[in-house]
């Protein structure tokens, strides 16, 4: 089962920030594959959602970028800035609190690792 894009859209920034917090630097394709791998294909980030988000994070100075030339191609690596690390923690905490609230609201049992 894959989740709807509406559900994922609100959490995409948090997902990207958390992945970058856990991995030193990543490029776009790598992020999509990592999400697929970690969620066993249940969450598939589309390119149309990922790249605008990465650009916005860069404009907000939450990520820093490095470019690498592969022939004529340019690969852009993203990593968290100091501000990004703080925001990442805040966003993850906020999402966790939201999930707990939703669990209460919908009377769900959340699995905890």
């Amino acid at each position, binding site marked *: 089962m894959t989740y709807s894009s509406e559900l994922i859209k609100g959490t995409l920034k948090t997902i990207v920030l958390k992945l970058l917090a856990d991995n030193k630097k990543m490029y776009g394709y790598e992020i999509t594959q990592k999400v697929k791998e970690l969620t066993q294909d249940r969450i598939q980030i589309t*390119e149309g959602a990922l790249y605008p988000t990465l*650009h*916005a994070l860069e404009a907000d100075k939450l990520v820093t970028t490095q470019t690498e030339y592969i022939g004529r191609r*340019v690969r852009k690596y993203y990593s968290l800035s100091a501000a990004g690390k703080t925001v990442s923690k805040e966003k993850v905490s906020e999402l966790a609190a939201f999930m707990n609230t939703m669990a209460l609201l919908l009377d769900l049992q959340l699995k905890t690792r």
Partner: protein
Amino acid sequence: MFTITDSHIDFILCDLRAKGIRIDDLQNNLLDHICILAEENLEDGDDFEMFYRSNIPRFYRQQLYEIEEETLFLLKRRKCFALLSRLQFFLLLFVLLIGPIICWTIATLGGPGQKNDADAIIRACEGGFVFSLFPLVTLLVLFLTPERFDPLIPKGARILLGWRPLVEIVRP
């Protein structure tokens, strides 16, 4: 493993530009993404153009330039101080247009010629109603018939309020 050549890169960049991707960074990101997809899914001798044409639609819902529009929207949104729906924008316009008239009417309450408070309130309501009729009807027509009278703000559009520009319409 499939080898990406310069002609493949030219083909991709040309197609991205033709489909409305103008931001260099975005072009580079998408180019790299497509190249990796091709390298991982094709074998030497496979038809690259066919692979490209069958895979590029998964990047968007209707048109590829949606990615560029979404990028620009997110960048603009950072600078704006309010993001309004169409309904909210029209309500704001209504308040801005009719608000001063109502304030003026209230301010004139109790002035010379008023017999009593009830009379003043009735006159204020009458004045407010008459003055509000024109903007109210105009806004109602604009809101209810966007296709005919209001091509600038179509249904589903979002309105950004900022400084430069003051008002920006983001089409759905």
